[in-house]
Every structure is written in C-alpha cells, then in structure tokens.
C-alpha cells in the first residue's frame, strides 16, 4: 500500500498535477484490416494483454488505435493524426516493414518516440533516427540464424532464394545473400514472386532444376503454405527448407502437417523459451483460444515498455525518448535494451531461435543455448 502511494506520489511529482494514478496515451498503428490483418490480429491481442498488465500496475493507459490496412501511405496519415491530433506520448507499431519504415521518418520529424515491435527491414533503425526504437531483430538476423543453423547441422554447399517482392522479402533476402556468400555458399537461384499468385509451380520447378542444398523462402501468411504444397507437388527436395519467419511461423502453417514437417523457420520468440513465456502462452490461449505467435509477444513487450516509460516520464515525449535510450527491461523476450552499434541506432539485440516443425509442433533446435530438441537434417523427403 505504501509502495503504491509512493509511486503515485512520484508520478504526481513528475508531471501530472491532477492524477492520483498515472495516465498515459499510447498510439498503436497496426494492420487491422487488409491482407496482413491475420497477423495484425496477433499484435492487437498482445497489446490488449499488455494494457491489462499495465492497469494492474497502476498505469492507466489509453490506447489510440489506427488501422494502416497494410499500406505505408495510410500508416503515415495515421501517424500524423496520432502525433498532432491525438497527441499521444509514444507510438507502438506499425506491423509491416514498409509501413514501419514510412512512419519512422514521421516519428523523427514530429519527435514522437516510436517502438517498432515486429518489422524486420534493416533500414528502419539504420537511418540514425533518434526517436525510433526497435524491439525485434532486424532482417539480417533471420538469414544469419538460419544459415548458421544449417551449417551446424550439415554440409550444404548451395542455396536458392524464393521470396516475395515486398520490403520484408527483399531485405531479408539481400541480407541472406550477403551472408551466404560470406559463408561460402553458392547461390544457384534468386527468384522473387508477387504475393497472392495462385501458381508458383514453374518457379519451383526452375529451382528444382538448379538442385540447391538449401531452399530459403520468405513469405507472409498463406503463401508459405502454398509454396510448400507446390514444392511437394513438383518434388523439390533439398537438404533443408529454411523459412524466414512471418508466414512460416504461424499456427496455421504448423497445423498443416503434410507440408510443414521438417521445415525450419526462424522466430523472434518461442513460448518454450522461459517460464514467463509459458505463463504468457497459457494466458493467451485461455483468452484468445489459440497459440500466441512472436508478433503477439513482441507487441506485448513493446506496449509494456511504452506504457511504463511513458507513465514514469509523465507523458513527456522528450523524457520518454531519454528513458527509452537508457532503460533496461526484462520479460518474456529476455533482456531488452536499445543499443547503438554497427550502424544501428536504438536497436534491441535479440537472439533469434531457429525452430523446426516436428510432428505438428514447433521445437527449438538452434542455437545450442536454447535447444529443446534434436533437428532432423537432411530433409528426409516427402511423405
């Protein structure tokens, strides 16, 4: 009780003259409708749980939600509305790389701290923006973790890339190609596709003809399932299928056992990573009736960090910026600290675990520190 009183007094002392309880306004830009909406929903759920937890801690958060429909230009007008109209203290989101990158520029311009929860495009935190903070690991780590894992499991010599022509697809692949070259892998195919096309068979046949040891795919949502189904149809059989997160890391993909079994993917977070994460999974399942994805976990942590920091700083954007830069948090994503290194500004260093689908569920197989099961490598063939 006295602790509560003390924190209430502290909040009072900092800024808000009329609040006995800390009151903060957070902006949240997300793909609520549009093609990325199924993933956006996970972020929304994560934010909802975070708001509950913040209220329990006495931080009274108001979340102003904006839908970017997956389009950068809509995300930009949403950001302008949040920054100048709603005058939020801090913004969480948007989901997609393209939207996040567009909003980052405005965050810097309007001096509104932005916490990016799950967008991978490298550039977002490489432009020296001092108001942009990223929680998740950037694109190059997707590729690095996967290629490192494959090299640890076997002796692949060549690699093929199949990826959708979006910011996410191209930036993960660009980083992947550079890393593959550095590791001495021969790049035998480099194929983009437009998401939503019903037929990838010809592209996959071309890749099959090139005979790569590794097939690296980057795709959102349902295209991942289509790509794997059609890989099975054309009989593509490399040593390993490497899926670059996103569509390869959804409950739906996991449930398609015929095509998901033995596929590797990389992720920002797994429910099995810590007791706190298991507890989060339990709560999430009880509340939403499905397994939480990394998007939910990232959005959850981003909102907690945003809410706590904003409450402590009394909603002052400049103070929040300073507090985000110097603060340190720990939770279901492990330790969070926004650092400036190797050309990145305010980037959280997150180790991405590699998972493999075995018997209809995902298990962590890399890096050794967090391993939960043995990997199956090479790919044993289609059942």
């Amino acid at each position: 009780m006295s602790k509560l009183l003390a924190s209430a007094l502290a909040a009072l002392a900092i800024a808000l003259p009329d609040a006995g309880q800390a009151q903060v306004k957070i902006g949240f830009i997300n793909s609520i409708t549009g093609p990325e909406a199924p993933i956006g929903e996970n972020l929304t759920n994560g934010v909802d749980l975070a708001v509950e937890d913040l209220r329990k801690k006495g931080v009274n958060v108001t979340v102003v939600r904006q839908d970017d429909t997956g389009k950068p230009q809509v995300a930009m007008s949403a950001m302008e509305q949040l920054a100048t109209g709603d005058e939020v203290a801090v913004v969480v989101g948007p989901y997609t790389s393209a939207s996040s990158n567009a909003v980052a520029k405005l965050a810097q311009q309007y001096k509104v701290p932005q916490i990016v929860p799950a967008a991978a495009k490298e550039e977002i935190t490489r432009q020296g923006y001092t108001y942009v903070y990223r929680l998740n690991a950037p694109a190059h780590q997707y590729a690095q973790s996967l290629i490192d894992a494959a090299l640890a499991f076997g002796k692949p010599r060549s690699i093929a890339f199949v990826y959708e022509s979006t910011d996410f697809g191209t930036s993960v692949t660009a980083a992947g190609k550079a890393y593959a070259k550095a590791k001495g892998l021969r790049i035998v195919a480099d194929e983009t596709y437009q998401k939503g096309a019903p037929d990838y068979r010809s592209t996959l046949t071309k890749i099959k003809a090139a005979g790569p040891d590794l097939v690296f795919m980057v795709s959102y949502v349902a295209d991942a399932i289509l790509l794997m189904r059609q890989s099975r149809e054309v009989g593509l059989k490399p040593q390993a299928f490497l899926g670059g997160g996103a569509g390869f890391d959804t409950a739906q993909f996991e449930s398609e056992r015929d095509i998901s079994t033995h596929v590797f993917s990389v992720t920002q977070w797994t429910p099995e990573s810590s007791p706190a994460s298991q507890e989060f999974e339990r709560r999430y399942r009880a509340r939403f009736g499905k397994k939480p994805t990394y998007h939910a976990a990232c959005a959850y942590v981003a909102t907690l960090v945003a809410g706590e920091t904003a409450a402590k700083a009394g909603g002052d954007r400049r103070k929040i910026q300073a507090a985000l830069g110097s603060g340190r948090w720990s939770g279901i994503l492990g330790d969070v600290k926004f650092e400036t290194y190797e050309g990145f500004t305010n980037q959280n260093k997150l180790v991405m675990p590699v998972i493999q689908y075995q018997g209809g569920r995902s298990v962590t197989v890399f890096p050794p520190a967090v391993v939960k099961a043995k990997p199956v490598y090479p790919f044993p063939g289609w059942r």
Partner: protein
Amino acid sequence: MVAFAQSVPGAVLILGGGVPALAGTELGPRMMVFLQSVLSGVLVGGVYALIGIGLTMIFGVMRVTNFAHGELVMLGMYLTWGLFHWLRLDPFLSIVLVAPALFLWGAFLQRAFVNRVLDALPQNQILLTIGLGLVMSNGVMLAFTSDYRILTTSYSSASYDLAGISVSKPLLYAFLVTVAITVLLYGFLLRTDTGQAIRATAQDREAAQLMGINVRWTSMLAFGIGAALAGAAGALISPTYYIFPQVGSAFTLKAFVIVVLGGMGSVVGATLGGVIIGLTESLAAVYIAGGLKDLVVFVLFLALLVFKPSGLLGKTRA
C-alpha cells in the same frame, strides 16, 4: 547434434506412383522446366477462363461490366469452404450446390440492382457493381473475419508424375471440370432455344426484343449463369489456393483483362484469353522474373489493345 530422419509411422503416400520415367526418354532439365511451366500455365489458365466466360456473358447480354465478378468468385470460395468445413463435402462435389446458389444470388442481384442501371451511363454502372462488390467482401469479412482459410484435402499437395513433369492433382481435376462445364455451356448456347435467345440478345438487344424474346428474363438468366460460373471457378480454386474476403479484387482484374483480350462478349475469346493469361504468367515467372509476371501480362494486354482494339475474337462495336 544431427538426428537423421526417424521413420514416420502411418501410411506412406507415394507421390505420383503412376508413369515411371522410361529410360531414354529422360528430358533435359531445361526442357522439363519449359514443359512444366506450359502445363501449369494451361491448367491455371483453364480456371481463369471459367471466370472470364462468366464476365463476358454478362457483358455480352447486358453491356454492363460486372466489377463485382471477383467477389462472386470469393463467395463461391467461402461457400465451398463452409460446405467442406461443416459438412465434409469434397470441394469438387460441392460445385453441384455452389453453382446453383450463386446462380440464384446472381439473378437476384440482376433483378434488384443491375437491371435498374441498364440504360444509365457506364460510369454509374461501374460504380454500382463496384459497390455491390464492396458490400459482399466487407459483409463476408464481418461474418468470417479477415483470417485466411486454407482448405486441406487429402490430395491438396498430391501430384501425378508424367515423365518427370509433375501434374498437380487438384489443378488437373479443376481443369477437367472446367472443360466439362465449358463444353456444356457451349452446347447450351448453341443447341437450345434459351441459349439462342441469350446469343440473340447479346448480338442486338432491340432486335431480339422485336423478335419476341423476353429480354428482361434473358438478362437475369445471363447474370445468373455468369455468377454460377464465377462460383464454380471459386469452388475449383479452393483446394489449391487460400481464401480471404479481399481475394476477389485480383480475380476481377484478371477476368477483365481476359475478357478484353479475347474480345468483349465473346465466349470463345474468353476461353482463349484465360489460357493465354495463364500461360503468360507461368512462362514470365520462369523466363523473366516471378515478381514481374503481372507486368508482362499487362504489357501484352496493352500491346494487343494498340494493335487490335477489339480483342482477339471481338467484333468492332459500332
């Protein structure tokens, strides 16, 4: 670290199983890639054609471009998904229910809305059909959320092996059903009185009316058939594609290109147009770049419009 493949319990599904590649007939990898892309292009094109035929019939009879056509395909997909999900009805069998349902829905839309703008300005007709499409896609989103639905059948990723070329089972079945539907439709249009009435109305609405053809009824029928074909196409794509409320817009655009390519109002043209678009997409994905296949399709489309504005088999409109 490395565990080798554990043997998997349960039945082993042997892919293809049929034709073993004969020694000596092994195709070179380049030839194989080419044949594979031609084959999947034609198979996918067949389904495109079905969507195009529906659109061209509606246009032919009413001179109204139905911009809600993709949404009708989407409705067909959701119906198929629902029948599969709740009643375990095979997507190919569900056509028997989906097509009549969409026929009634199409006839209703024609009677209640489209019929009122037959003499209106083209832009008003376009706005009306776009509006109908929006209502349908957003209505479905309200009812089913924007989640992607994937229909997984036992043959979803199975294929036949044809001398090293893989023939997707669901796509092959879809193509065969498409051919059957198209043949039936041709028979209906050429051999029956009602079919002739539809063709007559398409050729000259006023003259047909003067000859005693009930043009209003014929229009309703044509819109119903168009919608039924769209619904059937939706059912046929369901096992190989994924389903979400906004899936229609891509098909509307594709159907429109197919119809203009083949000649507005020409059923044979739309069939041809569908296969050409399927082939172009498939070949462009292999020989140019997967990300650029739409570009190739539209460049081809524009080139045709420059050199033959009436489409491949279209008659110039007076």
